[in-house]
Protein backbone atom coordinates (compact mmCIF):
# COMPACT_ATOMS: atom_id res chain seq x y z
CA UNK A 1 0.00 0.00 0.00
CA UNK A 2 1.43 3.42 -0.88
CA UNK A 3 0.50 6.58 0.94
CA UNK A 4 1.01 10.25 0.22
CA UNK A 5 3.53 11.94 2.55
CA UNK A 6 0.98 14.14 4.29
CA UNK A 7 -1.17 11.21 5.24
CA UNK A 8 1.94 9.37 6.43
CA UNK A 9 2.83 12.35 8.65
CA UNK A 10 -0.62 12.37 10.12
CA UNK A 11 -0.24 8.73 11.04
CA UNK A 12 3.08 9.49 12.72
CA UNK A 13 1.33 12.07 14.91
CA UNK A 14 -1.33 9.58 15.86
CA UNK A 15 1.22 6.97 16.71
CA UNK A 16 3.09 9.38 18.97
CA UNK A 17 -0.18 10.23 20.68
CA UNK A 18 -0.83 6.56 21.34
CA UNK A 19 2.65 6.03 22.69
CA UNK A 20 2.31 9.05 24.94
CA UNK A 21 -0.94 7.60 26.23
CA UNK A 22 0.86 4.33 26.88
CA UNK A 23 3.45 6.21 28.93
CA UNK A 24 0.83 8.18 30.84
CA UNK A 25 -1.19 5.18 31.95
CA UNK A 26 1.79 3.12 32.95
CA UNK A 27 3.35 6.07 34.82
CA UNK A 28 0.28 6.41 36.98
CA UNK A 29 0.54 2.74 37.93
CA UNK A 30 4.24 3.14 38.68
CA UNK A 31 3.91 5.92 41.25
CA UNK A 32 2.18 3.58 43.68
CA UNK A 33 5.06 1.13 43.66
CA UNK A 34 7.71 3.84 43.58
CA UNK A 35 7.39 4.81 47.21
CA UNK A 36 7.77 1.21 48.31
CA UNK A 37 10.73 0.82 45.97
CA UNK A 38 12.40 3.91 47.43
CA UNK A 39 11.91 2.59 50.96
CA UNK A 40 13.42 -0.73 49.90
CA UNK A 41 16.37 1.05 48.28
CA UNK A 42 16.98 3.16 51.39
CA UNK A 43 16.87 0.09 53.60
CA UNK A 44 19.40 -1.61 51.39
CA UNK A 45 21.76 1.37 51.11
CA UNK A 46 21.77 1.93 54.86
CA UNK A 47 22.17 -1.71 55.79
CA UNK A 48 25.40 -1.78 57.83
CA UNK A 49 26.18 -5.29 56.62
CA UNK A 50 26.11 -4.22 52.99
CA UNK A 51 29.35 -4.31 51.01
CA UNK A 52 29.37 -1.32 48.66
CA UNK A 53 29.69 -2.11 44.99
CA UNK A 54 33.17 -1.03 43.93
CA UNK A 55 35.72 -2.59 41.65
CA UNK A 56 39.25 -1.90 42.76
CA UNK A 57 39.39 0.58 45.57
CA UNK A 58 43.02 0.84 46.66
CA UNK A 59 42.10 0.50 50.32
CA UNK A 60 44.64 2.02 52.68
CA UNK A 61 46.25 -0.61 54.89
CA UNK A 62 44.32 -0.87 58.15
CA UNK A 63 46.41 -1.32 61.26
CA UNK A 64 43.62 -1.16 63.81
CA UNK A 65 44.76 -4.45 65.31
CA UNK A 66 47.21 -2.51 67.52
CA UNK A 67 44.31 -0.91 69.42
CA UNK A 68 43.33 -4.32 70.76
CA UNK A 69 46.64 -4.77 72.55
CA UNK A 70 46.71 -1.45 74.44
CA UNK A 71 44.24 -2.29 77.31
CA UNK A 72 46.24 -5.41 78.15
CA UNK A 73 49.17 -3.20 79.24
CA UNK A 74 47.37 -2.30 82.50
CA UNK A 75 46.74 -5.93 83.41
CA UNK A 76 49.42 -8.32 84.65
CA UNK A 77 50.93 -10.15 81.71
CA UNK A 78 49.77 -13.74 81.86
CA UNK A 79 51.04 -16.56 79.69
CA UNK A 80 47.87 -16.58 77.59
CA UNK A 81 48.04 -12.80 77.20
CA UNK A 82 51.63 -13.21 76.04
CA UNK A 83 50.50 -15.82 73.55
CA UNK A 84 47.76 -13.42 72.44
CA UNK A 85 50.41 -10.71 72.02
CA UNK A 86 52.48 -12.96 69.82
CA UNK A 87 49.49 -13.93 67.70
CA UNK A 88 48.59 -10.27 67.29
CA UNK A 89 52.15 -9.48 66.27
CA UNK A 90 52.08 -12.38 63.81
CA UNK A 91 48.70 -11.25 62.46
CA UNK A 92 50.07 -7.72 62.12
CA UNK A 93 53.13 -8.95 60.30
CA UNK A 94 50.99 -11.08 58.01
CA UNK A 95 48.63 -8.17 57.38
CA UNK A 96 51.49 -5.81 56.54
CA UNK A 97 53.16 -8.48 54.41
CA UNK A 98 49.86 -9.30 52.72
CA UNK A 99 49.18 -5.64 52.01
CA UNK A 100 52.70 -5.31 50.61
CA UNK A 101 52.27 -8.29 48.31
CA UNK A 102 48.79 -7.20 47.33
CA UNK A 103 49.98 -3.63 46.68
CA UNK A 104 52.71 -4.89 44.38
CA UNK A 105 50.19 -6.56 42.05
CA UNK A 106 49.12 -4.05 39.43
CA UNK A 107 45.49 -3.18 38.73
CA UNK A 108 44.46 -4.34 35.29
CA UNK A 109 41.63 -2.63 33.43
CA UNK A 110 40.47 -3.98 30.10
CA UNK A 111 37.92 -2.59 27.69
CA UNK A 112 36.04 -5.17 25.62
CA UNK A 113 36.17 -5.18 21.86
CA UNK A 114 33.24 -3.23 20.51
CA UNK A 115 32.76 -1.28 23.76
CA UNK A 116 32.39 2.50 23.89
CA UNK A 117 35.25 4.53 25.30
CA UNK A 118 34.70 5.59 28.91
CA UNK A 119 37.18 7.41 31.11
CA UNK A 120 38.97 5.49 33.82
CA UNK A 121 40.07 7.64 36.74
CA UNK A 122 43.40 6.58 38.17
CA UNK A 123 43.94 6.96 41.93
CA UNK A 124 46.33 9.90 41.34
CA UNK A 125 43.55 11.89 39.63
CA UNK A 126 44.66 11.28 36.04
CA UNK A 127 42.02 10.23 33.57
CA UNK A 128 42.52 7.69 30.83
CA UNK A 129 40.17 6.85 28.00
CA UNK A 130 40.97 3.36 26.74
CA UNK A 131 39.64 2.53 23.27
CA UNK A 132 37.75 -0.71 22.57
CA UNK A 133 39.92 -3.82 22.77
CA UNK A 134 42.60 -2.16 24.91
CA UNK A 135 44.04 -2.85 28.34
CA UNK A 136 45.73 -0.67 30.92
CA UNK A 137 47.54 -1.75 34.04
CA UNK A 138 48.76 0.56 36.78
CA UNK A 139 50.31 0.48 40.21
CA UNK A 140 47.77 -0.10 42.95
CA UNK A 141 49.80 2.14 45.27
CA UNK A 142 49.43 5.33 43.18
CA UNK A 143 47.58 7.19 45.93
CA UNK A 144 48.43 5.24 49.06
CA UNK A 145 49.64 7.11 52.17
CA UNK A 146 53.18 8.43 52.03
CA UNK A 147 55.56 5.62 53.00
CA UNK A 148 53.79 3.05 50.82
CA UNK A 149 52.95 5.39 47.96
CA UNK A 150 54.39 4.55 44.55
CA UNK A 151 57.24 6.95 43.74
CA UNK A 152 56.71 6.71 40.01
CA UNK A 153 53.53 6.56 38.03
CA UNK A 154 54.16 3.76 35.54
CA UNK A 155 51.31 2.40 33.48
CA UNK A 156 51.34 -0.27 30.81
CA UNK A 157 49.21 0.01 27.73
CA UNK A 158 47.97 -2.39 25.11
CA UNK A 159 45.84 -0.79 22.44
CA UNK A 160 44.96 2.88 22.18
CA UNK A 161 44.37 5.33 25.00
CA UNK A 162 44.12 9.06 25.57
CA UNK A 163 45.70 10.39 28.75
CA UNK A 164 44.80 13.46 30.77
CA UNK A 165 47.58 13.37 33.31
CA UNK A 166 47.18 15.13 36.65
CA UNK A 167 50.28 17.04 37.81
CA UNK A 168 51.50 15.84 41.18
CA UNK A 169 55.28 16.11 40.90
CA UNK A 170 55.84 12.44 40.14
CA UNK A 171 56.71 11.54 36.53
CA UNK A 172 54.03 9.66 34.64
CA UNK A 173 55.26 7.01 32.23
CA UNK A 174 53.28 5.02 29.67
CA UNK A 175 54.98 1.90 28.44
CA UNK A 176 54.03 -0.10 25.36
CA UNK A 177 55.90 -3.09 23.98
CA UNK A 178 58.30 -0.96 21.97
CA UNK A 179 58.18 2.56 23.40
CA UNK A 180 57.88 4.58 26.55
CA UNK A 181 56.33 8.02 26.91
CA UNK A 182 57.21 10.18 29.90
CA UNK A 183 55.38 13.31 31.01
CA UNK A 184 54.63 15.51 33.99
CA UNK A 185 51.10 16.60 33.20
CA UNK A 186 49.49 16.89 29.81
CA UNK A 187 46.97 15.49 27.33
CA UNK A 188 48.13 12.95 24.80
CA UNK A 189 47.21 9.74 23.02
CA UNK A 190 49.27 6.55 22.83
CA UNK A 191 48.56 3.58 20.63
CA UNK A 192 50.62 0.48 21.32
CA UNK A 193 52.14 -1.24 18.32
CA UNK A 194 50.53 -4.34 16.82
CA UNK A 195 52.34 -6.63 14.44
CA UNK A 196 54.27 -4.62 11.90
CA UNK A 197 52.89 -1.28 13.04
CA UNK A 198 54.87 0.51 15.71
CA UNK A 199 53.42 2.42 18.64
CA UNK A 200 52.17 5.94 18.00
CA UNK A 201 52.02 9.02 20.21
CA UNK A 202 50.05 12.21 19.56
CA UNK A 203 50.22 15.21 21.88
CA UNK A 204 47.21 17.49 22.30
CA UNK A 205 48.60 19.67 25.08
CA UNK A 206 51.87 19.95 27.00
CA UNK A 207 55.14 18.17 26.34
CA UNK A 208 56.20 14.51 26.39
CA UNK A 209 59.41 12.56 25.94
CA UNK A 210 59.16 9.42 23.82
CA UNK A 211 61.79 6.70 24.02
CA UNK A 212 61.97 3.68 21.73
CA UNK A 213 65.10 1.57 22.02
CA UNK A 214 67.98 4.02 21.79
CA UNK A 215 65.93 6.66 19.96
CA UNK A 216 64.54 9.49 22.04
CA UNK A 217 62.56 12.52 21.00
CA UNK A 218 60.61 15.30 22.62
CA UNK A 219 57.16 16.18 21.35
CA UNK A 220 55.18 19.32 22.06
CA UNK A 221 51.48 20.03 21.55
CA UNK A 222 50.41 19.35 17.99
CA UNK A 223 53.24 16.89 17.30
CA UNK A 224 53.19 13.13 16.88
CA UNK A 225 55.66 10.29 16.39
CA UNK A 226 55.56 6.64 15.39
CA UNK A 227 57.97 3.83 16.20
CA UNK A 228 59.47 2.47 12.98
CA UNK A 229 62.31 0.17 11.96
CA UNK A 230 64.81 3.04 12.07
CA UNK A 231 63.79 4.45 15.44
CA UNK A 232 61.20 7.16 15.79
CA UNK A 233 59.56 8.92 12.88
CA UNK A 234 57.85 12.23 13.44
CA UNK A 235 54.34 12.51 12.05
CA UNK A 236 52.16 15.48 11.35
CA UNK A 237 48.94 15.46 13.39
CA UNK A 238 45.76 17.49 13.45
CA UNK A 239 45.51 18.64 17.06
CA UNK A 240 41.74 18.97 17.17
CA UNK A 241 41.48 15.40 15.87
CA UNK A 242 43.55 13.72 18.57
CA UNK A 243 41.52 10.90 20.13
CA UNK A 244 38.31 11.68 18.24
CA UNK A 245 37.38 8.06 19.03
CA UNK A 246 36.47 9.14 22.55
CA UNK A 247 33.30 10.66 21.14
CA UNK A 248 32.78 7.79 18.71
CA UNK A 249 34.53 9.54 15.82
CA UNK A 250 37.37 8.16 13.77
CA UNK A 251 40.43 9.96 12.44
CA UNK A 252 43.48 8.74 10.58
CA UNK A 253 46.13 10.91 8.97
CA UNK A 254 48.46 8.99 6.67
CA UNK A 255 47.87 5.80 8.62
CA UNK A 256 48.82 2.37 7.29
CA UNK A 257 45.70 0.53 6.11
CA UNK A 258 46.61 -2.39 8.37
CA UNK A 259 46.48 -0.14 11.44
CA UNK A 260 43.10 1.27 10.38
CA UNK A 261 41.70 -2.25 9.85
CA UNK A 262 43.04 -3.29 13.29
CA UNK A 263 41.29 -0.36 14.86
CA UNK A 264 38.00 -1.11 13.06
CA UNK A 265 38.21 -4.73 14.14
CA UNK A 266 38.66 -3.75 17.78
CA UNK A 267 36.09 -1.02 17.74
CA UNK A 268 33.31 -2.97 16.07
CA UNK A 269 34.30 -6.36 17.46
CA UNK A 270 34.40 -7.96 14.03
CA UNK A 271 37.10 -9.98 12.33
CA UNK A 272 38.65 -8.18 9.37
CA UNK A 273 41.01 -10.11 7.16
CA UNK A 274 42.89 -8.91 4.11
CA UNK A 275 44.08 -10.86 1.08
CA UNK A 276 47.82 -11.04 0.52
CA UNK A 277 47.44 -8.79 -2.51
CA UNK A 278 46.39 -5.91 -0.28
CA UNK A 279 49.26 -3.59 0.64
CA UNK A 280 48.64 -3.08 4.35
CA UNK A 281 51.39 -0.49 4.62
CA UNK A 282 49.83 1.85 2.06
CA UNK A 283 48.55 4.88 3.92
CA UNK A 284 45.10 6.45 4.05
CA UNK A 285 43.65 9.58 5.63
CA UNK A 286 40.12 9.52 7.03
CA UNK A 287 38.10 11.71 9.32
CA UNK A 288 34.63 11.12 10.77
CA UNK A 289 33.62 13.50 13.57
CA UNK A 290 30.69 11.31 14.65
CA UNK A 291 30.40 7.55 14.98
CA UNK A 292 30.54 5.96 11.51
CA UNK A 293 29.40 2.42 10.73
CA UNK A 294 32.04 -0.18 9.98
CA UNK A 295 30.84 -0.66 6.41
CA UNK A 296 31.01 3.06 5.73
CA UNK A 297 34.64 3.27 6.81
CA UNK A 298 35.55 0.06 4.98
CA UNK A 299 33.81 1.37 1.88
CA UNK A 300 35.79 4.62 2.02
CA UNK A 301 39.13 2.88 2.63
CA UNK A 302 38.47 0.53 -0.26
CA UNK A 303 37.36 3.29 -2.60
CA UNK A 304 40.46 5.32 -1.80
CA UNK A 305 42.77 2.37 -2.48
CA UNK A 306 40.89 0.71 -5.33
CA UNK A 307 40.03 -2.30 -3.15
CA UNK A 308 36.80 -4.19 -2.51
CA UNK A 309 35.39 -5.92 0.57
CA UNK A 310 32.86 -8.60 1.28
CA UNK A 311 31.04 -9.90 4.34
CA UNK A 312 32.19 -13.11 5.96
CA UNK A 313 30.53 -15.10 8.72
CA UNK A 314 32.59 -13.33 11.37
CA UNK A 315 33.21 -9.95 9.78
CA UNK A 316 34.75 -8.74 6.56
CA UNK A 317 37.40 -9.65 4.03
CA UNK A 318 39.24 -6.94 2.14
CA UNK A 319 40.31 -7.94 -1.34
CA UNK A 320 42.71 -6.42 -3.83
CA UNK A 321 41.43 -4.84 -7.01
CA UNK A 322 40.85 -7.29 -9.83
CA UNK A 323 43.62 -6.72 -12.35
CA UNK A 324 42.84 -7.25 -16.00
CA UNK A 325 45.44 -9.50 -17.60
Amino acid at each position, binding site marked *: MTMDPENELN*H*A*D*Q*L*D*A*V*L*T*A*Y*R*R*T*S*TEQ*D*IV*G*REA*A*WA*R*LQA*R*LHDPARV*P*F*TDDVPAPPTLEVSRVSSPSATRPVTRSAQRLGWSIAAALLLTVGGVGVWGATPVERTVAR*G*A*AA*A*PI*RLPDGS*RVWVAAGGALSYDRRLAWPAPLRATRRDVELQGTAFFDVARDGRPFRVRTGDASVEVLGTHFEVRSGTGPFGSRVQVEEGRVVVTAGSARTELIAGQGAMVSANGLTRQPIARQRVATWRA*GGLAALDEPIGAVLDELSRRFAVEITADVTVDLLATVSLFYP*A*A*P*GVEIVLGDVCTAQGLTFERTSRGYRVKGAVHEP
Partner: protein
Amino acid sequence: MSLTSQDDLADLAVRVRSGDEAAFRQLFDALYGPLRRSAVALVRDAAVAEDLVQEAFVRLWDWRTRLEAETPLRAWLFRTVRNLALNLRRDATNRQQLLTDPMALASAAAPRPAPSPDAGVAGDDLAAQVSALVDELPPRQREALLLTRVEGLSHAEVSEVMGCAPRTVNNHLVAALITLRRKLRDVGMMAGALLWWVP
Protein backbone atom coordinates in the same frame (compact mmCIF):
# COMPACT_ATOMS: atom_id res chain seq x y z
CA MET B 1 7.05 14.81 35.76
CA SER B 2 8.98 18.03 35.20
CA LEU B 3 12.40 16.70 36.05
CA THR B 4 13.25 15.09 32.78
CA SER B 5 14.75 17.98 30.84
CA GLN B 6 18.43 17.61 30.09
CA ASP B 7 19.37 20.66 32.19
CA ASP B 8 17.49 19.40 35.24
CA LEU B 9 19.13 16.01 34.91
CA ALA B 10 22.60 17.52 34.51
CA ASP B 11 22.01 19.64 37.61
CA LEU B 12 20.80 16.61 39.56
CA ALA B 13 23.78 14.62 38.38
CA VAL B 14 26.18 17.17 39.83
CA ARG B 15 24.38 17.11 43.18
CA VAL B 16 24.18 13.31 43.27
CA ARG B 17 27.93 13.12 42.68
CA SER B 18 28.54 15.31 45.69
CA GLY B 19 26.48 12.91 47.82
CA ASP B 20 23.24 14.92 48.02
CA GLU B 21 20.59 12.39 49.07
CA ALA B 22 17.69 14.71 48.26
CA ALA B 23 18.95 14.96 44.69
CA PHE B 24 19.32 11.18 44.59
CA ARG B 25 15.70 10.90 45.67
CA GLN B 26 14.61 13.33 42.96
CA LEU B 27 16.54 11.41 40.34
CA PHE B 28 14.98 8.19 41.60
CA ASP B 29 11.49 9.66 41.42
CA ALA B 30 12.05 11.01 37.93
CA LEU B 31 13.55 7.85 36.47
CA TYR B 32 12.11 4.96 38.47
CA GLY B 33 9.02 4.62 36.26
CA PRO B 34 10.86 4.83 32.92
CA LEU B 35 13.62 2.46 34.08
CA ARG B 36 11.12 -0.04 35.46
CA ARG B 37 9.17 0.04 32.18
CA SER B 38 12.28 -0.53 30.12
CA ALA B 39 13.33 -3.36 32.45
CA VAL B 40 9.89 -4.98 32.20
CA ALA B 41 10.17 -4.80 28.41
CA LEU B 42 13.46 -6.68 28.66
CA VAL B 43 12.72 -9.31 31.31
CA ARG B 44 8.90 -9.43 31.18
CA ASP B 45 8.59 -9.91 34.90
CA ALA B 46 7.68 -6.93 37.08
CA ALA B 47 9.30 -8.24 40.26
CA VAL B 48 12.57 -9.05 38.52
CA ALA B 49 12.47 -5.70 36.72
CA GLU B 50 12.09 -3.86 40.04
CA ASP B 51 15.10 -5.71 41.44
CA LEU B 52 17.17 -4.72 38.43
CA VAL B 53 16.23 -1.05 38.74
CA GLN B 54 17.06 -1.13 42.42
CA GLU B 55 20.42 -2.72 41.68
CA ALA B 56 21.16 0.02 39.13
CA PHE B 57 20.43 2.75 41.68
CA VAL B 58 22.55 1.00 44.31
CA ARG B 59 25.44 0.92 41.86
CA LEU B 60 24.91 4.55 40.95
CA TRP B 61 25.09 5.53 44.61
CA ASP B 62 28.19 3.44 45.25
CA TRP B 63 29.85 4.73 42.13
CA ARG B 64 28.74 8.34 42.32
CA THR B 65 32.14 9.78 43.15
CA ARG B 66 33.96 7.96 40.39
CA LEU B 67 31.54 8.68 37.58
CA GLU B 68 33.01 11.31 35.31
CA ALA B 69 31.27 14.66 35.15
CA GLU B 70 30.53 14.08 31.46
CA THR B 71 28.77 10.75 32.06
CA PRO B 72 25.13 11.24 31.09
CA LEU B 73 23.43 9.76 34.16
CA ARG B 74 20.16 8.91 32.48
CA ALA B 75 21.85 6.94 29.71
CA TRP B 76 24.13 5.36 32.32
CA LEU B 77 21.17 4.13 34.35
CA PHE B 78 19.32 2.78 31.32
CA ARG B 79 22.45 1.03 30.13
CA THR B 80 23.12 -0.47 33.56
CA VAL B 81 19.56 -1.82 33.78
CA ARG B 82 19.91 -3.20 30.27
CA ASN B 83 23.24 -4.89 31.02
CA LEU B 84 21.86 -6.41 34.21
CA ALA B 85 18.84 -7.70 32.28
CA LEU B 86 21.02 -9.18 29.57
CA ASN B 87 23.27 -10.86 32.16
CA LEU B 88 20.20 -12.32 33.78
CA ARG B 89 18.87 -13.59 30.49
CA ARG B 90 22.24 -15.09 29.60
CA ASP B 91 22.46 -16.87 32.96
CA ALA B 92 18.88 -18.09 32.62
CA THR B 93 19.55 -19.41 29.12
CA ASN B 94 22.64 -21.22 30.32
CA ARG B 95 20.73 -22.77 33.17
CA GLN B 96 17.89 -23.68 30.82
CA GLN B 97 20.28 -25.43 28.48
CA LEU B 98 21.78 -27.35 31.39
CA LEU B 99 18.43 -28.50 32.67
CA THR B 100 16.78 -28.93 29.26
CA ASP B 101 13.40 -29.13 30.88
CA PRO B 102 11.01 -30.15 28.09
CA MET B 103 7.98 -28.69 29.89
CA ALA B 104 9.54 -25.27 30.29
CA LEU B 105 10.60 -25.28 26.65
CA ALA B 106 7.12 -26.22 25.56
CA SER B 107 5.47 -23.45 27.55
CA ALA B 108 8.01 -20.91 26.26
CA ALA B 109 7.14 -21.88 22.72
CA ALA B 110 3.37 -21.69 23.24
CA PRO B 111 1.73 -18.92 21.21
CA ARG B 112 0.36 -15.96 23.11
CA PRO B 113 -3.45 -16.14 23.54
CA ALA B 114 -5.42 -14.28 20.90
CA PRO B 115 -6.92 -10.98 22.09
CA SER B 116 -10.65 -11.12 22.74
CA PRO B 117 -12.71 -9.64 19.89
CA ASP B 118 -14.27 -6.84 21.93
CA ALA B 119 -11.05 -5.80 23.63
CA GLY B 120 -10.65 -2.94 21.17
CA VAL B 121 -13.93 -1.38 22.16
CA ALA B 122 -12.87 -0.12 25.55
CA GLY B 123 -10.63 2.95 25.44
CA ASP B 124 -8.86 1.94 28.64
CA ASP B 125 -7.49 -1.07 26.85
CA LEU B 126 -5.92 1.01 24.12
CA ALA B 127 -2.56 1.43 25.83
CA ALA B 128 -2.57 -2.27 26.65
CA GLN B 129 -3.23 -3.08 23.00
CA VAL B 130 -0.49 -0.77 21.83
CA SER B 131 1.87 -2.32 24.31
CA ALA B 132 0.87 -5.77 23.02
CA LEU B 133 1.73 -4.67 19.48
CA VAL B 134 4.98 -3.12 20.69
CA ASP B 135 5.79 -6.38 22.47
CA GLU B 136 5.59 -8.22 19.16
CA LEU B 137 8.33 -6.08 17.60
CA PRO B 138 11.83 -7.57 17.30
CA PRO B 139 13.73 -6.85 20.56
CA ARG B 140 16.17 -4.21 19.25
CA GLN B 141 13.42 -2.33 17.41
CA ARG B 142 11.18 -2.43 20.47
CA GLU B 143 13.97 -1.17 22.66
CA ALA B 144 14.85 1.73 20.34
CA LEU B 145 11.20 2.70 20.02
CA LEU B 146 10.41 2.62 23.74
CA LEU B 147 13.55 4.51 24.73
CA THR B 148 13.05 7.31 22.22
CA ARG B 149 9.30 7.69 21.89
CA VAL B 150 8.11 6.66 25.32
CA GLU B 151 11.00 7.58 27.62
CA GLY B 152 12.09 10.55 25.55
CA LEU B 153 15.79 9.73 25.31
CA SER B 154 17.77 11.36 22.50
CA HIS B 155 19.20 9.22 19.73
CA ALA B 156 22.67 9.87 21.14
CA GLU B 157 21.58 8.62 24.56
CA VAL B 158 19.94 5.53 23.09
CA SER B 159 23.08 4.73 21.11
CA GLU B 160 24.93 4.98 24.42
CA VAL B 161 22.43 2.66 26.10
CA MET B 162 22.22 0.08 23.33
CA GLY B 163 25.90 0.26 22.47
CA CYS B 164 25.42 0.97 18.78
CA ALA B 165 25.78 3.92 16.42
CA PRO B 166 23.06 6.63 16.39
CA ARG B 167 22.52 5.74 12.75
CA THR B 168 21.64 2.18 13.77
CA VAL B 169 19.23 3.49 16.41
CA ASN B 170 17.52 5.44 13.68
CA ASN B 171 17.30 2.38 11.45
CA HIS B 172 15.69 0.33 14.22
CA LEU B 173 13.29 3.15 14.90
CA VAL B 174 12.21 3.57 11.29
CA ALA B 175 11.67 -0.18 10.96
CA ALA B 176 9.68 -0.26 14.21
CA LEU B 177 7.47 2.66 13.19
CA ILE B 178 6.74 1.18 9.78
CA THR B 179 5.73 -2.16 11.32
CA LEU B 180 3.69 -0.58 14.06
CA ARG B 181 1.88 1.77 11.72
CA ARG B 182 0.96 -1.12 9.44
CA LYS B 183 -0.29 -3.22 12.35
CA LEU B 184 -2.30 -0.37 13.80
CA ARG B 185 -3.94 0.18 10.44
CA ASP B 186 -4.70 -3.53 10.17
CA VAL B 187 -6.27 -3.60 13.61
CA GLY B 188 -8.23 -0.48 12.69
CA MET B 189 -7.15 1.28 15.82
CA MET B 190 -6.08 4.52 14.21
CA ALA B 191 -9.54 6.01 14.28
CA GLY B 192 -9.93 5.00 17.91
CA ALA B 193 -6.55 6.42 18.74
CA LEU B 194 -7.50 9.73 17.22
CA LEU B 195 -10.75 9.93 19.16
CA TRP B 196 -9.24 9.09 22.48
CA TRP B 197 -5.85 10.69 22.57
CA VAL B 198 -5.53 13.57 20.14
CA PRO B 199 -6.95 16.77 21.65
